[in-house]
Every structure is written in C-alpha cells, then in structure tokens.
C-alpha cells in the first residue's frame, strides 16, 4: 500500500498520460474534417442525443434549480476536498476497503499492476472508465503481460478495432453499424459468420463473447461516477449491466477514481442522479446504478481496492478561475452540442477528454505550457452552447478565455519574437484605446478599396488573415465611417474635434 498523502501539495503536480495532444488542434482538425464518413456519423449521433436530451430536460420544471444545486454541491466539495477525502478514507477503510493514493498516471498504473499480480491474474475485465483511459492503463497492462478486456459494448468495439474512443459516453460514436459488423467478424473468435448489422444481432454477438470472460475473470477494474464521503460508498452508473457483472462476479475489484468525484453525502446523490442520465443519454433514469460499500462476507468481491488519483487535479484546483472544470460529471452534454466537436470528432483533441470540457480540462491537468495542449483553448468559437447544456453549470467559455490569456502570458514570457497576432493585437489596442486614434485609422480605410477587386470585394489577404479569405470574401470598406458621417450630419463639435472632419471619399 502506497503512503497516504492528504491535502494539497505545495507545488502543483501536473498530470500525465493520455492527456497530451501530439499535434496542434488546427492541424488535427483539418485532417478529421476531411473524413466525410466521420462527419456524417457524428452529425447524426450528436443530433439524436441532443434532441432526446432537450426533451427530457424540458420535463423537469426545476431543471435550473437542479443545475444550481449540482454546481453548489461541487463547489463546496472543491472547497473542502482534503477534509472530505479523509472522511471518505475513514469510512471506506472501516468497511473493509483498501485505499491507495496515486500522484500521477505512473503511480496509479503501478499500483493496479501489483494488485492484479497479487491476485494471481493475467486477465481482467473492465467497466467503462475515463480515469483508466486517462492514465493509459490498458496499454500499460498489456506491456506487463496482462490483458484487460473492455466490457462496455462501445468500448469493446473500439478496443477490438485497435482504435481510440472519440466520445466520453459513446466511445464508438464515429463508427456506424456496418463498420461494427466488420470489426466483429474480423476480431471476435467464434463469431457467427452470418452476422448481420442489425443492432440486436450485434449486441448478441458481444454478449456471447463477454459472458465467457465474466464467468472466468478473477479481477475486475472499474472507475466510479461518485464517492459518498459519509458512508464510504462508491457508485457506478451505466446502461448495459456489464458493469454490474464486473462489480459483483470477480473476487477482486479495483476502482480507479479521480479525487474530484467525491460528494459529501448520500442525500447529495439525489441531485446528480437526476442531472446525469438526462444530460448524458437523454434518459429519465439510467438502467443500472450500482453502489458498493466495502466488503460483504461471502457476497461479491472479497478484495476491494480504490486508487485515488490526482494526476493534475491539485494543479487544476489551485487555478481559481479554472477550478470549476473539476465539477465535471462526464455526462458529455457539452460535446453533443458543440459545433466544433460535431465536425472534428474526439480524436482531434488528442486527449481522453474531447470537446469543450476537454479543451479546458486537458490544459488544466497538464499545464498550459504543454505545447500542443496550448492550442486546445482556441478550439472554440465561444458560442456558449456548452455552458447552456452543462448540468453543473461549468462556465466553459469563460475558462477557455482564461486559459487563452494564460497561454498569451506564458508565450510573452518565453518567446523573443512576437508573432503576427501579438503585433496585431498590440497595434489594435493602441488604436482602439482612443476615439481620436480610431478616427484617424478609419481615414485609411478607403485604402482598403485598393485590395478589393472590381466587384468591391476583397478575396485574398496575406498573413494570418489568409485563413479568412480561403472561404470568405470581405466587403470593401465604405467611403465614410459612421463617425465621420455623424460629425458632418450633426456638426457635432465633439466629434469634429475627433475626426477632423475631412472627407476623402
């Protein structure tokens, strides 16, 4: 058992694992945009879930109050996290559970490996879990000669295809039925060669494949949606029941959970059990909610372990503006409404966490100076749809802007030569910091006509503006600014002074 550490470390420890993009977002996005099948699959799937979610959310007259409550509970958890973790540890341990603390991905992976070896297993079944994806547990175990089988249908599809999930709730959202049938035929031993792509037949094939594993596995690995401090209880919310098989059949159960998943008490769970299913799958209630508190002699797993994962969460918590990103309950509502996610898909974000929450969470966990991740906060038009959808009211646009400013500041500190954007912003700041300078700058605008063609449209601009003119024209500027017109029209001495009233149309 690794040593217990409580409280926030003096210096933030940034997270590691599958949280780093390997290329900047614009480049990754360009590649994904070229995949027409991906766009069609994603557009169809996100629209379906989006509409379902809107319908079931509209049924609750107190939805806004629930969101407010969810947000307030999470904020109070963040404010007293060390104390709640201690309370949880005491109660979990008192009921026969064993707690392990992991500072980062490496520590967590090592702890899980040792526990599996102690149980004498070389094969484990897994409940769908974001935390284990974040730390790259499956890949790590494979290197160690332990095979980890995903039992969630969509996770299984992605795993069989040697692909990566592209959505936190619907990991195979980028694949359609025909593609799934091909994967099963290719990768599942003993599959019926006459398998069709009807959902029932595909589900049946997966069920037969998994059942054998459930019955033989000695160790299961899960994540957790919630941990209740007052009783030391863990909770997993799922749709298929495979999670419950894993949580009850094997003898050893290892849960890996981020420290932020805590809730003070059972009564708080009520709020989240209304918020989560409606926001994620658009259902009033999810089919399976499993809760377990330690060990029950002769029933269920007899060795119950919990790995409490930091992996950058302390660093995120130390960021006053970004902290609320830790409120996230991984419902995926934000990505289902995000126009950028809808067109680029999850892989473009390069992290376990895609979409709007990924664009803030990955840089918060790893630090904004992590080069490719620094492009993530710009992967948004700030349309605000994510904030509206988020059941715990994380103000994602505000945090995006905050992280952009962190990025600008961090580059200011390191780069010697300012980029085009830096120069333009500085110049614009000078011009726009005074009505008089603005008026003077507008005098030069008619020069823009020189750049315009005979149809008075600008079709090609150099430098960073080239991206704009790749698909859009810009109208030629007018002969007279509004300010000039006003001064002339109203003989306004104030404006006259500012515009010098010379018309050069």
């Amino acid at each position, binding site marked *: 058992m690794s040593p217990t550490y409580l409280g926030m470390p003096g210096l933030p420890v940034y997270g590691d694992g599958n949280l780093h993009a390997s290329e900047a977002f614009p480049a990754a996005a360009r590649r994904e945009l070229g995949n027409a099948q991906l766009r069609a699959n994603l557009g169809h799937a996100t629209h379906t879930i989006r509409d379902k979610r809107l319908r079931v959310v509209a049924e609750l007259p107190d939805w806004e109050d629930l969101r407010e409550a969810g947000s307030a509970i999470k904020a109070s958890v963040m404010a007293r996290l060390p104390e709640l973790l201690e309370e949880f540890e005491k109660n979990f341990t008192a009921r026969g559970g064993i707690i392990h603390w992991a500072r980062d991905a490496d520590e967590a992976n090592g702890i899980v490996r040792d526990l599996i070896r102690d149980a004498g297993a070389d094969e484990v079944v897994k409940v769908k879990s974001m935390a284990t994806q974040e730390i790259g547990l499956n890949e790590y175990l494979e290197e160690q000669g332990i095979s980890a089988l995903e039992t969630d249908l969509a996770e299984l599809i992605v795993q069989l295809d040697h692909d990566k999930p592209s959505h936190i709730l619907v990991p195979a959202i980028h694949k359609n039925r025909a593609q799934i049938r091909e994967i099963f035929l290719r990768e599942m031993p003993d599959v019926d060669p006459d398998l069709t792509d009807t959902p029932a037949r595909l589900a049946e094939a997966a069920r037969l494949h998994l059942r054998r594993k459930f019955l033989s596995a000695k160790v299961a690995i899960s994540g957790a949606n919630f941990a209740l401090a007052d009783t030391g209880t863990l909770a997993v919310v799922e749709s298929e029941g495979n999670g419950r098989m894993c949580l009850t059949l094997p003898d050893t159960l290892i849960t890996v959970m981020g420290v932020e998943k805590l809730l003070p008490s059972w009564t708080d769970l009520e709020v989240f059990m209304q918020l989560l299913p409606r926001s994620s799958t658009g259902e009033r209630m999810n089919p399976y909610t499993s809760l377990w508190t330690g060990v029950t002699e002769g029933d269920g797993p007899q060795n119950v372990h919990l790995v409490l994962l930091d992996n950058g969460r302390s660093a995120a918590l130390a960021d006053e503006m970004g902290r609320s990103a830790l409120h996230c309950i991984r419902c995926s509502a934000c990505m289902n409404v995000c126009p950028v996610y809808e067109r680029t898909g999850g892989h473009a974000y390069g992290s376990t966490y895609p979409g709007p929450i990924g664009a803030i969470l990955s840089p918060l966990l790893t630090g904004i100076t992590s080069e490719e991740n620094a492009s993530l906060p710009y*992967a948004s*038009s700030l349309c605000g749809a994510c904030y509206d959808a988020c059941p715990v009211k994380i103000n994602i646009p505000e945090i995006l802007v905050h992280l952009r400013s962190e990025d600008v500041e961090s580059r200011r500190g390191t780069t010697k030569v300012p980029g085009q954007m830096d120069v333009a912003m500085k110049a614009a700041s000078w011009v726009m910091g*005074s009505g008089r300078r603005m008026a003077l700058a507008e005098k030069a605008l008619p020069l823009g006509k020189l750049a315009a063609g005979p149809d008075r449209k600008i079709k090609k601009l150099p430098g*960073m503006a080239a991206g704009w003119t790749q*698909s859009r024209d810009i*109208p030629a500027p007018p002969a007279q600014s*509004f300010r000039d017109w006003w001064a002339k029209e109203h*003989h306004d001495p104030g404006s006259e002074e500012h515009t010098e009233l010379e018309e050069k149309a």
Partner: protein
Amino acid sequence: MKIALFATCIVDAMYPSTGRATVSILERLGHDVVFPAGQACCGQMHLNSGYFPEAVPVVRNHVEAFEAQDYDVAVAPSGSCVASVKHQHAMLARSIGDADLETRATAVGARTYELSALLTDVLGVTDAATQLGSWYPHRITYHPSCHGMRLLRLGDRQADLLRTVEGLELEPLPEADQCCGFGGTFSLKNSDVSSAMLADKNANIAATGAELCTGGDASCLMHIGGGLSRQGSTISTLHFAEILASTRDNPAPAPDALRGPARKTAHTTGKAG
C-alpha cells in the same frame, strides 16, 4: 429620452449604414441620440483572444467615453459587443484589481442595451410597421447570433420585431441556434473548422429560399455574407436595424442591390444639425 449610441468598431468602420439606421429608428421614436465621440471599441477581440493587458486601455476608453456623457441609456446594434460591455468589462477590471474601474464599468454596463432589447423592453415598440413605418417587401430569414441568444437571452425579440415589418416574409431558418463559425479570431486560428461551420449555416440559409439573411451582429453577418459571396450565392445579408429603418419613402437596398458591386446607402436621419 436621451440615448447614447455605441456604434461598435465594426459598424463604425465597415457598416456605417447600420449605425445610421439605428439613429434613424431612435429619432423616429422621438428620442434624442448622442454619439460619445471618444468611443472606439468594446475590447471583445482582445478579451476573447486572451490579450488581457491589451484589452485594458480599450475597456478603460469605453468606460470613460460613456460615463462622461449625460444620457439615460446607451444602445448598440450588436449582441456580442453589448455582452462584452455587460459581462466582460467588470471582470477584466476585477482581474487587474482595479476596484474603481470595476464599479464604473458595472455602471456603464447596467445602462447599455442591445437594440432589440431597448426597443422592446424600454421603448415599447411592438409593431414596427405602425410605430416606425418599417417596410421591406422581401423574403428573408434570420440568424440569431450566439452572444445575443445565450449571453443576453434576447429570445425572439429581434425576430418578433422583424415579423411586424410591412411586406416582410420571415422564413424560419433550420438549426437557427447553431453558431455560424465566426468567433472572432477563431475564424483565423481555426479557419478550417470555421469554414465547415459556415458551409452548414449557409446551406441552411439557402434551404429557406429567402433572398436575404438578417441578424443582429455585423460581424456574424460579415462572416455569413462573405461565405455566400464567395460561393456566388444570390442571397445577401443586412443588419436587422436597417430593415426596421427601411420605409416606403427611404427604403433600404433590396437584396439584389446589396450583393451588387456598388452598394448604395440609404436612410439618413434627415436631421441636418
């Protein structure tokens, strides 16, 4: 009522006719419009791009220009600029620890309105045809911009006003609440994604069969219009203020005239000074 106009930088420099239309509407309702000459820009571009220190002088200038004037309310024909004034200025002041600027920015923000909110909530305009003489006999569709819709919660105010314009046919826009992909510097930094969003928006606009797309933000309309123009579409764009300001005597340009080479300007206030 004495109303201070915040023309916004893009209207001032690129779409002066939208500013003139706003003045015309307010004066027609019998109000006294003033133009605080020191104004320049709301600073949204700097703020949203993360250039906070560069945003400070811009925000300070806006606060100074508007608090110096004696007026009842301020108005801007732009949801996103009003959202910036209302939601971002005080936040920036707080982030640099300037409590004085925060108080002043909050005061300016509190009496700044987006045009349709001012017309509907304060000035009691319910029927543009009878109260303003608005006339624009064309088939149009309407794109509600994100910041007006989500940060200001403008709801149907702009569309409701448009519906009361004489002769106007308003075609519903499929997926109207989807972002057009502008997002300020997003359209430069993530130009490919922005273009993909724009392509979908413009396909939806084309599907309505409208001759023109209107909205409440000059920047979104510049983006949408720029894309339509590049595609060689016959659909043009025009700010909703210009449609409300359009009358039989002094009509706004028809959709086909708007996309032609020489864009005519119309509806001056008629006030000579």
